[in-house]
C-alpha cells in the first residue's frame, strides 16, 4: 500500500490490531464486552481520545522535553478523558450508566500511551491522526466482535434484538467468566489459522516487557537497580 495515510488505517485495523494482535487494552476488552452496543460505545470513546491525544502530542512533539514526556502525555490524556467523560455524562446518560468507571480508565489504557510513545511523538500530525483513527477503529471492531459473540450466545440477542429465546442461551457467557472464555477463543482461532500475535508477551512478563509495561515510567531503570 503506497499511500502512507491509508497504510495507517490498514495497520491499525488489521496488521497491528491493538486488541487481537498487539494484545493491548485487555481490561476494557474483558469488562465491557457484555453487549455489542457497549463495545461500540467504549470503542468510539477510546477512538475520540486516541485521535485527539495523538494529534496534540504530535503537534507538541518538539516542545515537550524528553525527560518529562510521560507525565506530560498523562496530563494531556487525562484532560481529554475528562472532557469525553463529561460530554458522555451530559448527552448520553445511558452510555455513562453502562460503562461507568471504565470511561475514566481510558486514561490508563495502554493503547493510548503506547501509541503516543511508539508513533505520535515521531510523526507529523496528519499521520498521527490517521494512526489514531486506524488503531481506534481496530479497537472498536475487536470490542464489538467480542460483545456480539457474548451477547448472541449468552443472551440470545444482537444489539438488543432477540434472535432466539433466552432459554437456549449459555448464561455464563454474559457473566464475568464469559469474558475470559471469548478472548481465549479469539486467540485460539488466531493461533489455529497461523496469525502471529503477541499472545506470549501477554502471559509472560518479568515486569518490563509485558503488555502494560512499555508505557510504564522508569521500568528499565528500576530493573537495573534491583539486579
Amino acid at each position, binding site marked *: 500500500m503506497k499511500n502512507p495515510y491509508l497504510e495507517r488505517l490498514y495497520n491499525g485495523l488489521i496488521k497491528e490490531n491493538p486488541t487481537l494482535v498487539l*494484545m493491548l487494552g*485487555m*481490561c*476494557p476488552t*474483558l*469488562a465491557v464486552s457484555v453487549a455489542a452496543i457497549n463495545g461500540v460505545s467504549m470503542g468510539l470513546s477510546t477512538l475520540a481520545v486516541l485521535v485527539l491525544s495523538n494529534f496534540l502530542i504530535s503537534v507538541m512533539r518538539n516542545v515537550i522535553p524528553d525527560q518529562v514526556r510521560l*507525565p506530560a502525555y*498523562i*496530563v494531556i490524556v*487525562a*484532560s481529554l*478523558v*475528562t472532557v469525553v*467523560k*463529561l460530554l458522555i455524562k451530559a448527552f448520553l446518560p445511558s452510555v455513562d450508566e453502562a460503562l*461507568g*468507571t471504565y470511561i*475514566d*480508565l481510558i*486514561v*490508563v*489504557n495502554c493503547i493510548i*500511551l503506547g501509541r503516543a510513545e511508539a508513533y505520535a511523538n515521531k510523526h507529523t500530525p496528519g499521520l498521527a491522526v490517521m494512526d489514531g483513527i486506524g488503531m481506534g477503529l481496530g479497537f472498536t471492531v475487536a470490542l464489538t466482535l467480542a460483545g456480539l459473540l457474548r451477547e448472541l450466545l449468552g443472551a440470545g440477542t444482537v444489539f438488543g434484538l432477540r434472535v432466539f429465546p433466552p432459554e437456549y442461551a449459555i448464561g*455464563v457467557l454474559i*457473566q*464475568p*467468566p*464469559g*469474558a*475470559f*472464555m471469548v*478472548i*481465549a477463543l479469539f*486467540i*485460539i*482461532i488466531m*493461533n*489455529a489459522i497461523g496469525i502471529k500475535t503477541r*499472545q*506470549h*508477551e*501477554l*502471559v*509472560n*512478563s*518479568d*515486569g*518490563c516487557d*509485558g*503488555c*502494560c*509495561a512499555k508505557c*510504564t*515510567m*522508569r*521500568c528499565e531503570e*528500576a*530493573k537495573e*537497580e*534491583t539486579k
Partner: protein
Amino acid sequence: MTRLILIVILNALISNVVLNQFLGICSFLGVSRQIKASASLGGAVIFVITIASAVASLLYSLVLHPLGLDFMKMIIFILVIAALVQIVEMFLKKKSPGVYKALGIYLPLITTNCAVLGIAIDNVDKFGYNFIESVFSGFGTAVGYTIAIVLLAGIRSRLTEDDIPRPVRGAPVVLLAAALMSIAFMGFSELQPAIEAILN
C-alpha cells in the same frame, strides 16, 4: 467494625478486582508465572493501593470536593498516584533495601495498573466511602488481587507439565484457567445482597 470487615470481604471476594471487575488484568496475566513473583507483586499492590486509596480519599474530601473541583479528580488522582509510587520507591530504597529488592521491579509497573486508579475513583464516586472506609476498601481490593494472582500462579505452575494442544498453548490456556477461577468466585456473589443490606 463489622462494617469495615464487611467492606473488606465485599471487595476481596465478592466483587474481586480481577475476576469480576477486570482491573489490573495485564499484571495478573503477565506476572503469574511463578508463585514467588506473584506473591511479591501482591505485596507491592497491597502496599500501594492501601496508601493510594487513603491519599486519594483525603485529597477528595479535603480539597477537591470543598472547592467544587470534582471533575478534576481523574487528572489529580493519576498524577498523585504516579508521584506516590515514586516516593514509596525512594523511601523503601533508603529505609529497607530488602523490601525494595523484593518489590522494586513491580512498583513502577503498578503506576499504570488500572486497579489503583479504578478503586480510588470508585471509593469516592460509586460507593461514597469516607476516609476509613476507603482505606479498608482499598486494602480489601488489593487482598483480592493477591489471592487471585497467587491462585493463578499455582495453577500455571502445574500447567507447564501438561500436554496441551498447540493452538491453546500460551495465553488461551491461562485465560481459560482464569475463567474457571472466575466461575468459582461467582459462588461468593450469593453473599452480596446480605452484605449490601447491612452496609446500606
